[in-house]
């Protein structure tokens, strides 16, 4: 009974997603925001079932797997100094700010950490797509932006593993924390060493001609890896991410990506819908002013951080500002973080709903800001130039 009803509601969700998505692509908006909105509307018609939840979980797993697969670990090690330099700057500018806001809002340490992560992590999906759409791939600041995104993705992947590990304890204590850090690092190190040393073996293992068996093998690697991660008390997502990393250096990479993409697109869409459905309607209206406030502050810190990173790279003022504005959109990772830990409902502001409002604002406004940054930077640079002129004239 439950299953067949779920099938119908899944069908309704998907058709709603299709039309909403169609509309979004027409006005060049990100699908993430639209999918969440669809979920928020659909919660009035049917509840989140265990089946949607299961698909949503798979959505996170496949999404992280694709991140891992497209993550070039080769170029990460090749450019590690640069990536760390820009990444740490960006981290210092944005992560503590989120934690501070969390503390002011009266969250406990775990929730403050989560809010730090939610506010810190820029959406690589939205930003990479906007860069291509706005024809900025060859701009000098783009390299920098992408390096920042790589660092963020890597950092947040580890952070996710860590925070889920901590979340299992329900409170933070030194011994438990150290143990979780050890576990996370060990898990990461295991995969990275495996991918560095057993390239040939992995290549041989996944070299399966048969299409169907190939898909099953890859799926089994992903799900097993996710399952093991969950079993040892880390997040499933991180197991999937590392599985992707492991397979990213194989010759079959393109084939794997093509085989898994449809699963990923379907389940990830359902993930965003399920998230939207779990955001409490009545709460949202009440949370909007807070969401706007956080959005403004965190956008400002992102732009500032980006500007300083650009200056270090000796970019022009315009490029620096473009860099900063390009880091504003938040998206998939913030949503994953918001849903990662079972929430304590005694908090003054529901973190999940707040994250929902925040991501909606920054995904929608963020991509608009990116597009319009040209105008803002022009205005800003010209104004500065005028000021300099005036100062010179006065002298």
């Amino acid at each position: 009974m439950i299953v067949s009803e779920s099938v119908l509601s899944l069908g309704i969700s998907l058709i709603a997603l299709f039309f909403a998505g169609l509309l979004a692509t027409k006005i060049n908006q990100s699908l993430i925001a639209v999918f969440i909105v669809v979920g928020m509307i659909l919660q009035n018609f049917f509840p989140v079932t265990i089946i949607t939840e299961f698909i949503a979980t798979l959505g996170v797993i496949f999404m992280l797997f694709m991140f891992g697969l497209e993550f070039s670990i080769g170029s990460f090690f090749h450019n590690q100094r640069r990536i760390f330099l820009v990444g740490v700057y960006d981290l210092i500018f944005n992560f503590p700010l989120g934690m501070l806001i969390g503390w002011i809002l009266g969250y406990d340490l775990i929730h403050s950490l989560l809010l730090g992560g939610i506010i810190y992590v820029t959406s690589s999906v939205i930003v990479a797509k906007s860069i291509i759409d706005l024809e900025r791939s060859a701009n000098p600041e783009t390299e920098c932006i992408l390096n920042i995104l790589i660092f963020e993705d890597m950092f947040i992947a580890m952070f996710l593993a860590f925070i889920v590990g901590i979340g299992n304890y329900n409170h933070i204590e030194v011994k438990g924390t150290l143990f979780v850090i050890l576990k996370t690092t060990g898990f990461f190190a295991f995969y990275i060493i495996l991918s560095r040393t057993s390239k040939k073996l992995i290549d041989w293992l996944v070299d399966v001609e048969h299409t169907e068996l190939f898909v099953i093998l890859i799926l089994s690697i992903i799900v097993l890896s996710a399952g093991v991660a969950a079993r040892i008390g880390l997040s499933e997502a991180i197991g999937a991410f590392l599985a992707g990393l492991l397979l990213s250096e194989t010759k079959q990479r393109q084939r794997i990506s093509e085989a898994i993409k449809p699963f990923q697109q379907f389940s990830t869409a359902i993930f965003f819908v399920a998230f939207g459905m779990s955001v409490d309607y009545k709460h949202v209206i009440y949370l909007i002013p807070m969401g706007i406030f956080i959005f403004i502050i965190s956008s400002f810190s992102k732009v500032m951080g980006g500007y300083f990173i650009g200056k270090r790279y000796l970019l022009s003022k315009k490029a620096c500002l473009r860099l900063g504005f390009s880091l504003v959109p938040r998206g998939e990772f913030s949503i994953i973080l918001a849903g990662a830990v079972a929430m304590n409902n005694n908090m003054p502001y529901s973190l999940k709903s707040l994250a929902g409002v925040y991501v909606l604002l920054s995904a929608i406004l963020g991509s608009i800001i990116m597009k319009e940054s040209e105008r803002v930077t022009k205005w800003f640079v010209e104004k500065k130039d005028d000021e300099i002129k005036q100062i010179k004239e006065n002298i």
Partner: protein
Amino acid sequence: MSEIKECDLPGIGKKFTLELDSGDKLVVVIHSSGEREVFKFIHDNDEPTSVTKLNDEEAHQIGAILTGTYFQPVIEDEQKLAMKNVTMEWIKIVPDSTLANKKIEELNIRKLTGVSITTIIRGKHVIPNPSSHEIIKLQDTIIIVGNNEQIKKFIAKFEIKQRLEE
């Protein structure tokens, strides 16, 4: 040769930057999707002045043109057309030939028929672009060039019987 800077754009593709002698920069981005983008940056400007998008096939064609290995078939047809009206003829000088043992200038070939002698083949020797003082000898083979009418005139005028097929 100027240096080409290569760099990864994770999630997008690969970027190649070429500094031109003029001080401008040409940047090629190869997307993972196979699409190519060519950007031109004037001097130190950090925004491109032009963007050209090419699909895989177009990129191959442009690449071939730029390296000078691409010929359009249309031009080849035109060349054939141009050659249609021009004929080369190999002529063996036999003992009773009116051409034998005469200087080229004596024969006044070009004035009379419009045909030019381009080459004399004498046994193992080849005389390209023979001077007008050259004497045509028995057993020589001469190569003449002209349009069809000129060649016909030449054959009639000098009573050529033995023509060698090309």
